[in-house]
């Protein structure tokens, strides 16, 4: 009486045995182990039996049981490989349509991959030219205050830099940079604006900027020293040989102590000149400026550390914490923490405020990589889909190969070689496409091409090849597995036994995925564009049309006003400190009666013409009065409604005349203005005020009524030239300024739009291939149906029906998903959002489905119209 062996040993252990054991020993050994297993199940129970089985399988791994690795002759391998190439080439040539679809689809997707690789390679090369690249760290700050999100800043305080230099061991150098050194330099009556940085004397010990002349050790040591870039030197002196000469800034004389080669494009630190920081330091300390060395003055300064070889960043980090703990006094509202950031993380890194130079968010790279990957995978699906669909035709070849003696591994390798070959062909076409789309990508952002060339280095080409091989393997692995599993006996005897249609569902899922992806992209473009145009056309609560903002660049407002006011097209002139609604903000703390209750008041300094010119609605009180000559009375303030609510100032009429304290100074409310959007639309309306401080006006706002804007602008330019010959005319229409404020959104829409185009192309190509295949295999069926009386329309529907369901399924998945993504994640933080409507959600999807239908019908109509006599007659 034997019990039926209902228990099985662990499957994986059996597989392991099958894998390593010589085939001639395998069967009886397996049998022995199973016999013992069954015995052990009876005697010791299932768990112990399994354990013994596994242990035995491992113990049987002995020299005499293990397969010898096959060592075949290298020439033989070469012959086999050549045969793979040959059959791959033949198979390519035999199915021109499928090959075209595969290569084209892969090429399209890979062009994006190449672009991304070239982009990341460019970014990774940033700053790498510094000799101490691996040892340079930047000190970044975290600003914390109660009730606010902590702010991450790339900048730090001068004090932090000085403290680190004095009291932190384990650091070779600490260089301090201040970015406020954009001045007009005059040489022998010639005056030029030059952009520069203040830098401490050890600048050249940390950074490997090449000095053409001058001593790197002493160039920035003494006050009133300047190091010019080569270009700046040529502009000022008509030669790079400027060391030892002098330049004047306002009334101060500086000595040129060196000329440095222009910072390379791939440096995040860019400058036309460097001034010795000690100049600034002495001046500020002489003026007893408390702000200069204040712990919280961390907006304009950067500290870079050079650690010694084998330096310990963590020890330095601890030192930074010690310094911060000393400087953050108990009872301070604001605390600042310092952290080290390696130089390699400066350009591609976390999002920080106050970046010194070019910066790309790490997250953006990740998202782009993700999207590119998805597009590439989508193209791989085409290959997989079409290969498996065509298995019927190629399985005989595989059968014969196997009968002749090909092993599973060899067939597997053959198909992988084939797909890698196709991917390699595709990468060549992809490279051409990359060359075509490169200028477009560089043009997405105006400043992009200043930093990024997208010209691949030799090493980058290696990554291109790797991409091709990777894509080839990704696309080919499933077909290769499929074909290598084919049982030759079955295929040769009766091909219909092939379990082809087991994979039908997989193929359907892949197609649905591709179209869902396309629809996602399209809907994203729709929603994004709606938000973009919504932002541009949003009623901000004041007028922005036909207003030209001129950056006065330090010139006298009165002089400029007089000059431009003479043009008849200029119908109104006002002046302001900044341009609201485009992302720029100025704020100050404000209190009412309770000295403990303060908040931030956002403000703009304006003149008396600003409010009427921008058509702001004054709901109570009065506007500023025209300034009396020599009066700098800035005690008057016009606030918005939000501010009244914040401090409980009552109705607008009641509020007029009440007093607030801004930064401790009393100001009087003389008017109340209707709330308007002074920030970008992703922020709510906050407490806002107009102040008047004629000292701080930086822009002229011109109301222009002109039929020929370009002519007017060039006439304004001529007027500007009369007053300021040094600085170029800088003016922009308000609406254009707003457009620039949302340029990021527009860039993202362009990228997503491009990806949408790619995804649709790839999906449609794949669909076309599948339709061709299906219609071809059903040619006979269709002909017989036709003979029996089916109408053309009926046949087209019959052939298209399956695909239609897939498209609808794709839409049903993609539309809600994209909507959720935008509603809950991407646009969740934007306060003023365009409502996502029916049109945005469905027009994109319909367009995709329309294109897909076109692909389907192009084939089905052809087949449905075919003469059945011809098809059937061929037999």
């Amino acid at each position, binding site marked *: 009486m034997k019990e039926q062996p209902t228990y099985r040993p662990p499957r994986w252990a059996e597989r392991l045995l099958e894998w390593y054991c010589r085939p001639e020993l395998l069967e009886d050994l397996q*049998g*022995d182990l199973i016999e013992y297993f*069954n015995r052990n199940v009876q005697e010791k129970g299932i768990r112990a039996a399994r354990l013994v089985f596994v242990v035995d399988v491992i113990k049987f791994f002995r020299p005499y049981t293990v397969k010898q690795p096959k060592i075949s002759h290298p020439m033989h391998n070469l012959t086999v490989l050549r045969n793979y190439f040959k059959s791959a080439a033949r198979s390519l040539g035999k199915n021109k349509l499928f090959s075209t679809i595969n290569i084209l689809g892969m090429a399209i997707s890979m062009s994006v991959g190449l672009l991304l690789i070239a982009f990341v390679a460019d970014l990774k090369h940033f700053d790498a030219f510094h000799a101490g690249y691996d040892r340079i760290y930047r000190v970044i700050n975290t600003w914390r205050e109660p009730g606010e999100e902590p702010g991450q800043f790339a900048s730090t305080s001068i004090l932090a830099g000085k403290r680190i230099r004095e009291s932190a061991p384990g650091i070779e150098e600490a260089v301090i940079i201040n970015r406020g050194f954009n001045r007009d330099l005059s040489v022998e009556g010639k005056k030029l604006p030059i952009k520069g940085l203040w830098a401490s004397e050890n600048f050249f010990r940390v950074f490997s900027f090449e000095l053409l002349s001058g001593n790197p050790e002493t160039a920035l040591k003494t006050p009133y020293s300047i190091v010019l870039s080569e270009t700046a030197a040529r502009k000022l002196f008509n030669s790079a040989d400027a060391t030892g000469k002098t330049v004047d800034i306002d009334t101060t004389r500086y000595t040129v102590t060196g000329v440095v080669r222009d910072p390379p494009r791939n440096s995040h630190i860019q400058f036309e000149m460097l001034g010795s920081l000690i100049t600034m330091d002495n001046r500020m300390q002489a003026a007893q400026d408390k702000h200069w060395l204040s712990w919280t003055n961390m907006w304009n300064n950067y500290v870079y550390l050079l650690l010694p070889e084998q330096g310990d960043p963590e020890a330095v980090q601890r030192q930074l914490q010690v310094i911060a703990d000393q400087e953050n006094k108990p009872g301070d509202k604001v605390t600042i923490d310092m952290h080290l950031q390696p130089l390699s993380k400066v350009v591609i890194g976390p999002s920080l405020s106050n970046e010194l130079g070019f910066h790309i968010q790490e997250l953006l790279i990740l998202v782009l990589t993700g999207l590119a990957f998805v597009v590439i995978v989508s193209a791989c699906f085409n290959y997989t889909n079409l290969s498996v669909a065509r298995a019927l035709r190629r399985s005989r070849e595989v059968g014969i190969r196997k009968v002749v003696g090909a092993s599973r591994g060899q067939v597997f390798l053959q198909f992988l070689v084939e797909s890698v070959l196709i991917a390699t062909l595709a990468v060549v076409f992809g490279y051409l496409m990359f060359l075509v789309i490169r200028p477009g990508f560089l043009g997405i952002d105006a400043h992009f091409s200043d930093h990024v060339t997208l010209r691949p280095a030799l090493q980058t080409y290696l990554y291109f090849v790797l991409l091709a091989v990777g894509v080839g393997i990704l696309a080919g692995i499933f077909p290769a597995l499929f074909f290598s599993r084919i049982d030759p006996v079955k295929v040769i005897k009766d091909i219909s036994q092939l379990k082809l249609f087991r994979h039908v569902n997989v193929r359907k899922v892949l197609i649905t995925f591709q179209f869902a992806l396309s629809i996602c992209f399209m809907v994203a473009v729709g929603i994004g564009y709606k938000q973009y145009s919504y932002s541009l056309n949003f009623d901000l609560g004041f007028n922005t049309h036909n207003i030209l903002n001129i950056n006065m660049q330090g010139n006298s407002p009165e002089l400029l006003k007089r000059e431009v006011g003479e043009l008849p097209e200029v119908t109104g002139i006002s002046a302001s400190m900044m341009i609201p609604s485009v992302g720029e903000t100025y704020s100050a703390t404000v209190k009412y009666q309770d000295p403990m209750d303060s908040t931030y008041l956002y403000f703009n300094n304006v003149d008396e013409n600003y409010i009427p010119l921008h058509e702001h609605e004054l709901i109570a009180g009065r506007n500023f009065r025209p300034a009396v000559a020599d009066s700098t009375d800035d005690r008057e303030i016009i606030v918005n409604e939000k501010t009244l609510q914040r401090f409980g100032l009552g109705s607008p009429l009641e509020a007029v005349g009440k007093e607030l304290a801004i930064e401790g100074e009393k100001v009087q409310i003389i008017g109340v203005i209707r709330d308007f959007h002074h920030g970008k639309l992703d922020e709510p309306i906050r407490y806002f005020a107009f102040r008047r401080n004629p000292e701080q006006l930086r822009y002229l706002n011109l109301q222009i009524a002109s039929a020929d804007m370009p002519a007017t602008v060039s006439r304004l330019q001529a007027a500007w030239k009369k007053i300021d010959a040094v600085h170029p005319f800088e003016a922009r229409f308000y609406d254009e300024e707003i457009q620039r404020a949302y340029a990021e959104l527009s860039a993202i829409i362009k990228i997503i739009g491009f990806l949408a185009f790619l995804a649709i192309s790839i999906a449609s190509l794949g669909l076309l291939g599948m339709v061709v295949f299906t219609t071809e295999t059903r040619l006979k069926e269709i002909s017989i149906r036709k003979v029996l009386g089916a109408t053309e329309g009926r046949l087209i529907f019959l052939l298209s029906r399956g695909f239609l369901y897939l498209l609808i399924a794709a839409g049903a998945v993609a539309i809600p998903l994209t909507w959720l993504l935008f509603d809950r994640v991407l646009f969740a933080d934007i306060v003023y959002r365009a409502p996502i409507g029916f049109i945005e959600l469905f027009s994109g999807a319909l367009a995709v489905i329309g294109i897909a239908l076109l692909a389907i019908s192009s084939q089905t109509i052809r087949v449905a119209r075919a003469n059945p006599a011809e098809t059937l007659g061929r037999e």
Partner: protein
Amino acid sequence: MKGTNLGEFEELVMLTIAALTTEAYSVAICDTLEKHAGRKVRLGVVHAVLNRLESKGYIKSTLGEPTNERGGKRKRFYLLTNTGKSALVRAREVREQLWNIIPDFVFKGLIG
């Protein structure tokens, strides 16, 4: 004559094969050895020895018919080859000759 020498365990395995006649397959050999030699015999050891003996040409093997036991795997039955038989006989002769020249008193009292 290197290679014709039999190890002790090899000899035991071959004797077991001979004793089991046509039913000598790995698990049965293990069981029988365990019963008669009174010691724990590992399958892995027996398997290795069988493999070695076969490569020396002392035994030969054939696969039996598949059955429902053993997960449908066939058994490998072992038989002694003529070389194997003669090796066993020679081994026994060597021993007997040696036994014969041992004076009786050596084992006096042990063998009764």
